[in-house]
């Protein structure tokens, strides 16, 4: 935002207007459809990511509605077992792989660079590639579903049910490849975020001045890096068992069905925290802004966040207490599962202190955070309960678990909505309606609790998960009906949110650059941000740069405006160290993604897909690495420092 970034003397203003113009020519997306397909701007990509993930959220929600409709009364004949199994599998797969993780990484890819004061992520083309691969994965899953090739063995896809003998056809293979696609996308995002946070922070943003949301994204990125390969490999193993007859999961030939569960949950548990930790980060950001006070116990909160990341790798067996895992091992996992509660506790306590010491403004984003804490408390406490082996053997795979996991994940969705209401003005330039927002929150809060709280008791009362129906004589009908009513309310609230977005886009109040008087750098640019984000990269002197100076904010000078130049700073102290050239937009990422997509889809049908695909992919990567004439000339100009 030019006016605040520099002192408003005439000469300077002119100079900056000129600079801004050239920056726009340099960093702007190319025009037209091809330009849209070539874009590598982290803001365009991030926006697409967020919208795509939200569309999948809606689709997953529709599936949830169908599930609740089917279960609303006993012996319901709305959905048969075949379609029901596909739908609940689609719901889980969509929510975990196509909504939750991509949404969290997407928020990171959009806001991390702006919050650390960079103009783009470290590897813009790779970023675009990641998005396209993710999109292909989602389209694959849903095309499959509409062609009746929808996976039907649950999002956890246990063998042998999902193995070659008990899952004929290609349904499970579609699932396996979708997972592969989304894992690739997530891993790409993790590399982007780590490199951006490590090397592209604004001068002065030392390691202990990094905004908490960025910290949470960093933790998430590392967790993705060390957990996603487990499920990616596992799904490859499964595909191999199904396609080329390997025996990894075949007990008779020395394989083991439990191996799948270990591999899957070693990813599957961190997965939950991959979703939850960024949610904590967003909530922290909102708490700080609306308490008008710096985060209380910033170091403690950050360390708790990191500890949480580590601990989450020590929990996976608590998904397997009903299997033949030895007692001793189980009790270890009980302990870790209890311990991780402390890390969350510390962060909650820090918030409460921040709010207590600050002067909270009860705006919608802040209210969503309050709701987030309440909802998460319920999910977290039931989580501690099921860490107990004996109790878990009763409620494992029952609706008690359904209730628990939805409380935890829905809590993250509350935090996400807090983030939406908080950052929507930054992304679109318009505020979301406050009154509609409160209605949305109220309905959502009621809906979620009415939908999921009764399920605790359904589980204790003997109702297992993943049943397409139940006998009238079991007496589960009433609570199920209640739960379904809650689901309807939740759907209503989501609709209300869409209305709010639509109205604000048409007639919403103009936001201005910094509607919340927030403390972090994304508010230092215009709303919506320009393609180059900052005319002058900011310089940071504290944890809350926006609260230090209202005008005459210190800036970086001497950056080139005629080509895409990024400032590389040192890892710990963010001292300017070198200048980095970033390539112009290109279609190459899309082409490479299509090649990758083709390869993995071909792999569903024949092992030769691998040979064929690797050739195509190699060609694409060569093209990727080889600079065209313009890029070459530009790189030369950059290195030789000539205009």
């Amino acid at each position: 935002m030019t006016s605040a970034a520099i002192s408003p003397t005439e000469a300077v203003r002119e100079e900056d207007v000129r600079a801004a113009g050239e920056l726009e020519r340099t960093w702007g997306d190319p025009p037209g459809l091809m330009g849209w397909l070539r874009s590598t701007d982290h803001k365009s990509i991030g926006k697409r990511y967020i919208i795509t993930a939200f569309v999948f959220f809606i689709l997953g929600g529709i599936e949830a509605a169908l599930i609740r409709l089917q279960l609303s009364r006993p012996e319901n004949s709305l959905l048969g077992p075949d379609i029901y199994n596909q739908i609940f599998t689609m719901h889980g797969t969509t929510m975990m792989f196509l909504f939750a993780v991509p949404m969290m990484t997407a928020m990171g890819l959009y806001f991390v660079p702006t919050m650390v004061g960079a103009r783009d992520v470290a590897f813009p083309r790779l970023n675009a590639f990641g998005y396209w691969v993710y999109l292909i994965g989602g389209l694959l899953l849903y095309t499959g579903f509409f062609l009746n090739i929808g996976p039907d063995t649950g999002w956890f896809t246990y063998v042998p049910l999902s193995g070659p003998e008990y899952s004929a056809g290609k349904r499970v293979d579609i699932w396996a490849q979708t997972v592969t696609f989304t894992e690739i996308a997530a891993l790409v995002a993790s590399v982007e975020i780590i490199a951006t946070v490590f090397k592209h922070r604004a001068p002065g943003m030392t390691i202990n001045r990094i905004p908490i949301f960025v910290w949470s994204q960093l933790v998430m990125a590392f967790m993705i890096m060390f957990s996603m390969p487990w499920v990616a490999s596992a799904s490859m193993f499964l595909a191999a068992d199904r396609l080329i007859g390997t025996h990894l999961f075949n007990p008779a030939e020395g394989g083991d069905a439990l191996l799948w569960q270990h591999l899957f949950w070693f990813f599957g548990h961190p997965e939950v925290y991959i979703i939850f930790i960024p949610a904590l980060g967003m909530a922290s950001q909102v708490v700080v802004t609306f308490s008008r006070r710096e985060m209380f116990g910033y170091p403690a909160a950050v360390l708790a966040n990191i500890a949480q990341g580590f601990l989450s790798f020590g929990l996976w067996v608590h998904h397997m207490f009903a299997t033949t895992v030895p007692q001793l091992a189980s009790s270890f996992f009980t302990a870790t599962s209890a311990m991780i509660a402390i890390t969350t506790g510390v962060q909650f306590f820090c918030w409460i202190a921040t709010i207590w010491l600050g002067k909270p403004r009860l705006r919608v984003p802040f209210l969503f955070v309050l709701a987030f804490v309440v909802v998460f408390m319920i999910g977290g406490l039931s989580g501690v309960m099921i860490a107990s082996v004996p109790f878990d053997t009763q409620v494992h795979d029952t609706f008690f678990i359904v209730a628990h996991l939805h409380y935890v994940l829905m809590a993250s969705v509350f935090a996400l909505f807090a983030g939406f209401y908080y950052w929507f003005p930054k992304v679109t330039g318009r505020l979301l309606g406050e009154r509609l927002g409160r209605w949305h929150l109220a309905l959502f809060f009621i809906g979620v609790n009415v939908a999921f709280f009764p399920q605790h008791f359904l589980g204790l009362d003997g109702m297992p998960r993943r049943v397409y129906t139940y006998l009238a004589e079991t007496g589960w009908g009433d609570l199920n009906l209640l739960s379904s009513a809650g689901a309807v309310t939740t759907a209503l609230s989501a609709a209300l949110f869409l209305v709010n977005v639509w109205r604000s886009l048409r007639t919403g109040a103009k936001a201005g650059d910094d509607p919340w008087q927030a403390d972090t750098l994304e508010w230092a640019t215009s709303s919506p941000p320009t393609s180059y984000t900052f005319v002058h990269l900011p310089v940071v002197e504290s944890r809350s740069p926006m609260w230090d100076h209202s005008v005459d904010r210190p800036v970086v000078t001497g950056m080139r405006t005629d080509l895409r130049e990024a400032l590389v700073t040192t890892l710990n102290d963010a001292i300017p160290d070198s200048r980095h050239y970033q390539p112009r937009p290109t279609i190459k990422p899309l082409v490479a993604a299509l090649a990758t997509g083709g390869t993995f889809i071909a792999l569903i049908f024949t092992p030769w897909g691998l040979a064929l695909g690797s050739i195509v992919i190699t060609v694409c990567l060569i093209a990727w690495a080889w600079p065209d004439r313009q890029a070459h000339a530009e790189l030369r100009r950059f290195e030789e420092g000539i205009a």
Partner: protein
Amino acid sequence: MILVRIAAALLVLACGGCEREARRFDDSPPPARPVTMSELEPGPRTMASTMRNPYEGNAWAISQGKRLFSQFNCVGCHGQGGGAIGPPLMDDEWIYGSEPENVFATIAQGRPNGMPAFGGKLNSQQIWQLVGYVQSLSGLIRKDVAPGRDDHMQRKAQEQSTDKMEPASSGIPASAEGRQ
């Protein structure tokens, strides 16, 4: 645009996806028309196929056929398709014809030299499922429909990886010759 491209690619690859994936629980396909075959003259039948196996393209039905094949102890005589007391099923030699409906008739009506008639005990759905599996044993159905490896000791390559064996002119079983 990209959406269209990908969707198109997927549609091509997933062609017949619907048929391959259908789970028809409550299905009673018409039986093959009864074939009259006198005990006295076993041997090659050159019968114009008037009827395809309704489950040729249906992976689930064929996996059911595989299940029935082991549960009804067809392996007792035919081995895992390799043959033992009964003739092998995974080669290109078809004593009573390779056409689906011949195989159907063989299962339904039985054959001399020990193949019992299962007509009364299996319904047409089960028999067609078995026929589909028997076809898959010699690679006569689509690869993407054929079963993968099973979850027990591996005794033979998975049907998926079985090469197609064009039915050859079949010979009369030695025993049958002996009787004539």
